[in-house]
């Protein structure tokens, strides 16, 4: 049984949601593998540099039953998205928005809880600010595959190391990935993920890595 102040706070949030003025910092469901690194929040924008991380960010809200959209992603790997937990029944893609990618993204922010966008050109801070107002109003999050001005968290994947593949034998089986989350000027959070893990699951717990530590070489990887 929750205490009375908690209950009141909870009810206030729900009332606010009904009144269509979602508190912009409301947390959204996040993929468990990224749990210690980044927490998706409504109204914020995120930048990633890898398709897998972008799909993983879509997967969190999608698992929780929200709609997702991807704009300008003509190389959407549907099978990988499903493996990460994206529900394809609630995904819309606009693979080729051309010059109108910003308008399309703004329209889809009304529809989807999380919108992945790969900008066709440079994003001006004014355009980003306009979109951010819309994100806050709709309680949606924006994931940009590429650079985005003034984004909340910048996720980068580095030092991928594949296991299971040799010189002409085996096949790609699992990958160790060093993920770094930079949030403003705060020291970056880092984690080593098995993404995917040996058993083809994508939900392995990450181990935080000290900023200065060196990644140990993984066996079976050249």
């Amino acid at each position, binding site marked *: 049984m929750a205490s009375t102040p908690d209950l009141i706070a909870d009810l206030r949030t729900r009332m606010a949601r009904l009144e269509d003025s979602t508190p912009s910092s409301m947390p959204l469901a996040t993929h468990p593998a990224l749990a210690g690194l980044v927490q998706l929040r409504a109204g914020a924008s995120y930048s990633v540099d890898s398709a897998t991380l972008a799909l993983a960010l879509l997967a969190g809200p999608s698992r929780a039953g929200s*709609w997702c959209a991807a704009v300008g992603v003509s190389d959407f*790997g549907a099978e990988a998205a499903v493996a990460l937990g994206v529900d394809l029944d609630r995904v819309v893609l606009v693979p080729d928005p051309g010059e109108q990618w910003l308008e399309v993204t703004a329209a889809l922010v009304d529809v989807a809880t999380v919108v992945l966008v790969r900008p066709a050109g440079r994003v001006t801070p004014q355009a980003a600010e306009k979109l951010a107002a819309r994100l806050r109003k709709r309680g949606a999050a924006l994931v940009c595959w590429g650079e985005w001005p003034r984004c909340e968290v910048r996720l980068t994947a580095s030092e991928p190391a594949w296991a299971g593949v040799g010189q002409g034998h085996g096949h790609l089986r699992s990958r160790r990935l060093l993920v770094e989350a930079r949030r403003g000027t705060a020291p970056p959070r880092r984690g080593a993920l098995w993404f995917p893990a040996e058993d*083809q699951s994508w939900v392995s717990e990450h181990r935080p890595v000290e900023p200065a530590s060196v990644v140990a070489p993984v066996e079976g990887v050249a």
Partner: protein
Amino acid sequence: MARVMVVWCPDWPVIAALADEGLPTHLPAAVFHANIVQAGNAAARTLGVRRGMRRRDAQSRCPELKVYPATPERDARTFETVLTAVEEQHPGVAPLRPGLAALRAPRRARGGEPAAAALLAERLVELGVWDSRVGVADELFTAEQAARLAHEQDCHIVAPGESVPFLRELPVEAIDDADAISLLKRLGLRTLGELADLPAAAVRDRFGPKISWVHRVVGGAGAVPLTTRTPPPELARHVDFEPPLDNAETISFSVRQTADAVVAGLAAQQLVCTEVRIEAFCEGSSYDDPSSARDWLHPRWFTAADLVDRLHWQLQGAMRNVKGRGGDIRSPISRILFTPVTVVPDAVHADGLWGGTDERVQRGIARVQGMLGHEAVVVPVLQGGRAPADRQALVPWGERPTGLRPASHPWPGSIPPPAPARVFASPWPAEVAGAGGRPVAVDARGAVLGEPTRFRPEPRGDWLPVAAWAGPWPVEELWWESGGRRVARFQVVGVDGRAWLLTWEAPGSWWTEAAYD
């Protein structure tokens, strides 16, 4: 007890097939199922084609024989015109199977039963059905046998109370069951009368319910009431424009009422439409030949606004003359026709009490479709295949996926998981080189010649040394056709740790199909 009239159109499957092609009925033709003759017409029979004959035997006797596959839907669809014509003259028609229908014989027709039958035959000739035969008797089985004895466009009438003597004289071949006929003949029974003399219990135990029913009928009992149908309601709607219109927006605006009427007409029957055919007729074209026609599928069901949208998309495509998008419109449009193709009871698609689809999603996506055209917004679906790009399909929003390959099949030659996160819609040209710059190839047995040492996955990228590689997964696609190609897929990891799916294609080109990014 009302008397029964049976209308029989012999060789209906063949007549339906020829009529579909617009060919005259005197050509020898036959309908085949599993390479066995199911039905042939009179011309084929005079040349020696028989039911149950193999296709090659039939064609050796009659090389010019028209061969058609058996399609019961086509037979039923074309027979519908006959049913409607009969219904116009006498309500209460029971369709027995394509080519055979029963109705209650008119009691007080002027000129009696022969005149009524003659009128019916005359009406069918007007429709182009030359060969129809009518039988009239006290009950259904006898009437059908009478129709089979009648001549072309004529009738055979079995007088009231004369059924039993009529049936007793018939040979056992009257029963439409080859196994039963063979068995009865081997038992020495040649007429239905001899069958009727057997004890009822023995017939039932030995021959089963169907022959047992015939036994009862020949004995003067077992008449079954006709299950007549109610005519199906007219659900298609059309709108005519006078003067004809040439602007897609104006037309879409003008069909709004008609679209409402289509949906309301369905709702009155407690139906909703999930597939609709929209046809547009240009000025001066005949009403048999639409200038633009397309079947639209809806993931849920069509509302009036959806119908207007689909028409708008179709007209835009046809006016811009986009290939494969429903025809070519070059002159103003005089008529739009909506035909519901698939309807289902609305209970199947009823909204949940707490809201099924998200109206907001529909509206937002409609806005994007308004900006970029309706095919710009797509939904990804999974399907079976070998290449990563074959294993997914992009379906335009608002359409139902069709023709997907089943994902449950084994698909030998496909790449084991994990799946690549980036799948390129059209592969990039890549380059792979072995030691000393020698080319890497795959021979006809799927063995790799040379070992990849460096590669360039992106067209304008840098050459990278290969850290690890796996493969090949060879696939010969469509080797039995001229467009076939021999490919082999490789997983290649560069020294930077990034993995790519590269494809070698005979005789020696490389492509980047996907990236494990």
